[in-house]
């Protein structure tokens, strides 16, 4: 295991991580360095402090673990691997993600899972322990987003405005007794069935195990959002209204 202590410029830090032959790299007290673990595929990178934007961008395997908060664009376009944040993450978490998993113990900001997609065996997943900001899953095309709303006591869904706007694939699971106040037309919201729940059970177990949490979850606590199969997009492109 290799330990690297903070103070390096992001380019130098990235270079050290890439050159490192050990499979486990520990970073102490990072502060704002961008692109940590970008495109890595076979390393376990653990860190304390606050990593900079685009943590694990293009990640292609391995594990990144942050004992603290992450900033914006965590896991941007990641393809494989796991990112665990023992804290909260900023805006645009998992932007255009196409594979792999992101677990956030706390909250995430605006635009998590925007443009997330899936292809054949690749089904990316984001699990948020607390709340998510507005535009969650905007233009989602595939994959799974789960928001657990732990500690959410406001009587409102644990997401902001415009959840799932433009969604045309994938699913969003919201652990909430109520739906978000306004959902766009393209989104279909239903109570979670046992089959729906089984599909995400491994993710929930991994979330609990990752953060050593004791909450238990059950199907009836969730709503599932999916694209409206009536496919309103046809109306955008044809005169007849499809």
């Amino acid at each position: 295991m290799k330990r690297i202590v903070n103070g390096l410029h992001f380019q130098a830090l990235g270079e050290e991580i890439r050159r490192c032959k050990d499979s486990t790299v520990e970073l102490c007290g990072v502060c704002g360095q961008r692109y940590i673990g970008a495109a890595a595929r076979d390393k376990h990178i653990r860190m304390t402090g606050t990593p900079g934007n685009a943590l694990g961008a293009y990640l292609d395997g391995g594990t990144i673990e942050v004992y603290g908060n992450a900033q914006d664009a965590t896991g941007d376009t990641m393809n494989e691997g796991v990112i665990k944040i023992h804290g909260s993450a900023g805006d645009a978490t998992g932007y255009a993600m196409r594979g792999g998993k992101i677990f956030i113990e706390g909250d995430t900001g605006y635009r998590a899972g925007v443009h997330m997609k899936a292809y054949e065996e690749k089904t990316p997943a984001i699990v948020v322990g607390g709340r998510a900001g507005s535009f969650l899953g905007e233009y989602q095309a595939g994959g799974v987003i789960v928001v657990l709303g732990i500690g959410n006591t406001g009587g409102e869904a644990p997401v902001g405005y415009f959840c799932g706007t433009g969604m045309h694939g994938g699913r969003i699971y919201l652990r909430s007794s109520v739906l978000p106040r306004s959902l766009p037309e393209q989104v279909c919201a239903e109570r979670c069935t046992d089959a729906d729940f089984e599909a995400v059970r491994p993710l929930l177990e991994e979330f609990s195990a990752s953060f050593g949490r004791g909450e238990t979850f059950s199907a009836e606590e969730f709503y599932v959002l999916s694209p409206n199969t009536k496919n309103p997009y046809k109306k955008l492109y044809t005169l007849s209204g499809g």
Partner: protein
Amino acid sequence: MKKEGQVRIPSGCAISGIFARDGERIGGEEIVRSIALMHERSNGLGGGFAGYGIYPEYRDLYAFHVFYDSTAAKEACERFLERHFDVVNLSKIPVRRMPEITDEPLIWRYFVTPLPTRLVASQLDEREFIARCVIRINTSIEGAYVFSSGKNMGVFKAVGYPEDVGRFYRLEEYAGYCWTAHGRYPTNTPGWWGGAHPFAMLDYSVVHNGEISSYDANRRWIEMFGYQCTLMTDTEVITYLVDYLHRRQGLTLEETAAVLAAPFWSTIEQMPPKERERAVYLRNTFASLLVTGPFSILLGFTGGMMALNDRLKLRSMVAAEKGERVYVASEECAIRILEPQPERIWSPRGGEPLIVTLKGEA
């Protein structure tokens, strides 16, 4: 030089602010450390700072910071100042020569108070008198530009990286209860000394990360009220919108924020009746002052600071508290470098202003 809209420089910005609610004076080197950490968000074409509470010995005088292109401009401006003001003190602003900052204009500071006869004859209140004099100098005296004009506050800005600008102006020699900072990465407009942030009018100062799509609509409206956008950058107009709404129209800061970052109609529909009525009124009355496009701004003013994101939150902004200190920055790391263990750290929602004021002055 080409103006806003005539040139496009394809290329974010960084902002940071510190506020001491108990009025404790924070050294300028602190804000420099914070903004320096976000070096990559700037490209060396502009950096600047605003400090509040930095001139306690002249607290009742307006502090004018002025750039001059030539001694002729300085002489013309000083003749104007002598006709309209009692100039209590004048000096060059002390700077540190350094290779990172070049082509500086003449940089002067004047502590002034309006001549009573002039003020009475103008039939204006004092602040309006000052604002008009500043606009007059900036538009009619070639090569003179007043870039700071408030009491017990000052703006320091230049072309360069913000950490270099901070050293250039020897900010460690100043202390105040509030500091804001900006690192510039101009996207649409030329990088020049006047175009660096903050933009100030009276004691209002604005630092901005973003790009204002509504610039021309906002400009056309505000120019009806005597403001002139001369600085070839979009941020200038936000300063005038705040001055117009908060000082001249007497709106509260919350109302001002609800005009600049008005909620969507679909969001307004979901509000409780009373709140909805207010939101509809503000959106309709000041429709042309809605600022669209991505922005995160820090507004400094006497005794307070306001942070505001556009309603879609298209730019990052994080806030934190520890004791009486409040921090706001584009990135969390820029707060952690000053305060590793804040008691609370959060991101205000888009369009939701964060307003902090000195204790006892709220």
